């Protein structure tokens, strides 16, 4: 245990004795990183470090690291982006994430193990016994009272979003999780840690994570990102989620972000932002799959392969009169398209859409109508019957469910 190792001294053959005050690891060096340096008590302000290679023997009875030279060399570098991490100074007592169990807690103690000539960091002790152990100087609470967290499953954050950008000092264990799970985890972290986590993820995953976050947390994290990251991530978010986020920014920030975004996403977002957030237009999405009327099912299938990649909601395919007018003719489901004979015209399997929403009707009302329709989504059309977007059952549930349920409600189209 680290708490035990911190009661050791480094002693060299000349009998010089220095108290060990910290151990250092290279955090990016594999699942169980080896100790790279002993930090010992020095005379000055900076504590000198003894490289692990100088350690010849570990004497557990006398609590000694036998070293070739105990005077130590220069202190450890103190750049924030250095991969060298001090176990006591930075890891002990810090918040750590267990990726395997998707939980966050404080590291009460760290389990070390001798492996050949090296001493390795193996696991984190989060048990109550470790608190007792540290407070009583190791007299009580010697064995952990709950299972250790294997360091292999731990993601360690320093609460500095700038580090995430450089990205080279992480094990990226968090990448194993789904975006929604990462988003839930960030809610148990301080927002600087949450931002660091987002910045170390690939942009498309970061965008998905941001979409899933609680709105307040999303705003906090977004505002800690630099301008370039903001732009890159919002561009990759679903248009309706991006519009919701932009809708909550200060006006000047919203305007400058819209000006910086590439044309296509900016257009999609602007189209959504013209409606107040408490209307059907404000909760709809305008990323959906559309197809022109007059095609056969086979032709429609072929074209869908290109257009089906981007939208989250693909189950309903909306049939339009033509790309300019965008008048809604009807809807076909993916099932219709896969089942129907390939030479049949679309119109034969199409359902004429009877239920539509107006963009200006209240969001509450629209959401209820979607739920009552028992459809997965209801299209939003303007006075001339032009398709503007669609309100999915996800949007509807988010609108009318009590706030406590929202985080728990399953999302169908993610």
């Amino acid at each position: 245990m680290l708490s035990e190792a911190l009661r050791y001294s480094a002693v060299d053959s000349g009998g010089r004795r220095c108290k060990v005050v910290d151990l250092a690891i290279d955090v990016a060096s594999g699942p169980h990183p080896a100790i790279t340096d002993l930090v010992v008590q020095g005379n000055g302000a900076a504590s000198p470090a003894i490289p692990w290679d100088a350690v010849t023997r570990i004497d557990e009875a006398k609590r000694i690291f036998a070293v070739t030279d105990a005077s130590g060399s220069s202190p450890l570098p103190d750049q924030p982006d250095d991969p060298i991490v001090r176990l006591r100074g930075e890891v002990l007592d810090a918040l750590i994430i267990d990726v395997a169990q998707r939980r966050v807690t404080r590291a009460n103690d760290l389990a070390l193990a001798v492996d050949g000539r090296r001493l390795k960091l193996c696991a984190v002790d989060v048990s109550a016994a470790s608190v007792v152990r540290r407070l009583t100087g190791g007299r009580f609470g010697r064995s952990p009272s709950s299972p250790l967290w294997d360091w292999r499953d731990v993601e360690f954050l320093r609460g500095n979003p700038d580090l995430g950008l450089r990205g080279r000092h992480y094990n990226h264990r968090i990448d194993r999780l789904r975006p929604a799970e990462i988003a839930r985890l960030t809610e148990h972290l301080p927002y600087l840690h949450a931002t660091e986590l987002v910045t170390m993820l690939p942009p498309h995953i970061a965008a998905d994570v941001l979409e899933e976050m609680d709105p307040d947390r999303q705003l906090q994290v977004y505002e800690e990102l630099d301008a370039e990251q903001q732009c890159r991530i919002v561009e990759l978010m679903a248009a309706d989620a991006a519009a919701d986020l932009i809708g909550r920014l200060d006006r000047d920030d919203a305007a400058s972000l819209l000006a910086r975004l590439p044309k296509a996403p900016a257009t999609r977002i602007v189209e959504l932002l013209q409606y107040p957030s408490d209307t059907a237009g404000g909760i709809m999405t305008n990323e959906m799959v559309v197809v022109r009327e007059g095609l056969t099912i086979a032709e429609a299938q072929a074209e869908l392969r290109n257009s089906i990649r981007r939208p989250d909601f693909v189950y309903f395919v909306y049939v339009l009169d033509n790309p300019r007018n965008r008048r809604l003719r009807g809807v076909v489901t993916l099932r219709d398209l896969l089942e129907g004979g390939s030479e049949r015209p679309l119109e034969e399997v199409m359902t004429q859409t009877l239920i539509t929403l107006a963009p200006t009707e209240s969001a509450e009302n629209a959401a209820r109508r979607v739920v009552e329709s028992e459809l997965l989504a209801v299209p939003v059309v303007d006075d001339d019957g032009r398709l503007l977007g669609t309100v999915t059952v996800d949007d509807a549930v988010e609108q009318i469910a009590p706030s406590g349920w929202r985080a728990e409600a399953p999302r169908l189209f993610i």
Partner: protein
Amino acid sequence: MNAAPGQSGTIEQEETSTNAAAPTLVGTQPRRGAIQVRLRGRRIRLRGLRREPVGPLRWLLVLGPGVIAGAAANDAGSIATYSSVGATYGYALLWALLLGTISLAVVQEMTARLGVASGRGLLDLIRERYGLAWSVFAVAVMLAANGGLILSEFVGIGAAAELVGVSRLLAVPVAAALVWGLVVFGSYANVEKIFLVMALAFFTYPVAAFLAHPQWRDVARGTFVPTLQPNAEFILLIVALLGTTLTPYQQLFEESSVVDKGIARKHYGPERIDTYVGMALSGLMAGFIVIATAATLHIHGATNINSAADAARALRPVAGAAASELFAVGLLGASLLAAAVLPLATAYSISEAFGFPKGVNLDFRHGRVFFGSFTTLVAAGAAASLIPGLPVISLLVWVQALNGVLLPIILLFILLLVNDRTLVGELANSRLTNVLGWGTLVVVTIAVVALLGTQALALVGIYPFGK
């Protein structure tokens, strides 16, 4: 049959239809708050953007943790101290209250800033920066002190309820259930709103003060002309006044609560208003309690005030039933608010120190330790307050001693942390706040040592300043 290659354009994708014209910003209408964008030849007003709140509403919306922390400071025990100060010395100590309020505002502003800048509660930071031992010490002392205070709040609720003719056996359990249900089932936003409404109960004090017809000239002199009386009791009362004005749970609550509210670093500016308004109101209400009791009890020589309920009772013959009942309603609101804030602050701190999930927005399943400790404190406090013949006053003396031990330590940690630029960056303390902050720490430390010293000596029967 497959569609022939090159037959594109039949499928209409969003991107192809809209790429023709990117949105260009036309401009903003500064007063109406709408941004206009030109898209495919059309001018579109973005109505979906956040509307900046205008007028007085804007100021109301930033109120939250600061006002609640300020209001919760005027709890049952504090009302007793203020009443006693007013009854014994009239307006003579109002200046000390003014200085105490300024110190409190400086400290609370630093704490809120620390919370916003670091995104962490005070116990989070103490654990991370100063280690396990300090955080366990802080939690243990706070648990004992806040436990005692929670008990005294429920005693206050019972006493206030009986003053308006409701049995405490009914009022205390109902109050406990209300407070518990609110925090466990409520969201942060709802809880904050209801707390703010509870804080409105304090406006009964100015009314009670006016009903007491004080001499406003004397009030002004007492507030702005510092006077010292060369007797030990007077000096001790100043110290006690400082002790009730600045309490550790206020700092712990405000920081955790600011973090729970999720205020972004960029939006810290307006949050200062929350703290300053909160502390100003807190100071004003304390002042009105002193004035109400000074104008009545002091003049009539009724100086033996040991609890807030005593004060309310003593007001009846001299200021009328209305003033007395207003006082009781204020006490009820104050105790109820503090009975919710204190266990909440404690639950936050325990969860922070040991890394458990925390936050009012969680549900019981996800925040077992957070809500578990909250529930235990509320239930135990309410149950213990119903024990007949409880020595509440001597209990409060001990609580004050514990808080006295904790306060300088907490203040020292806050000052060190809020000057750590690696942690708070640009939101670090300015020179002025540092002078005020360290000054407060020095005065508080002297005051606490003096208070604890006399209490310790009194325990062994020595009264250096006379009894």
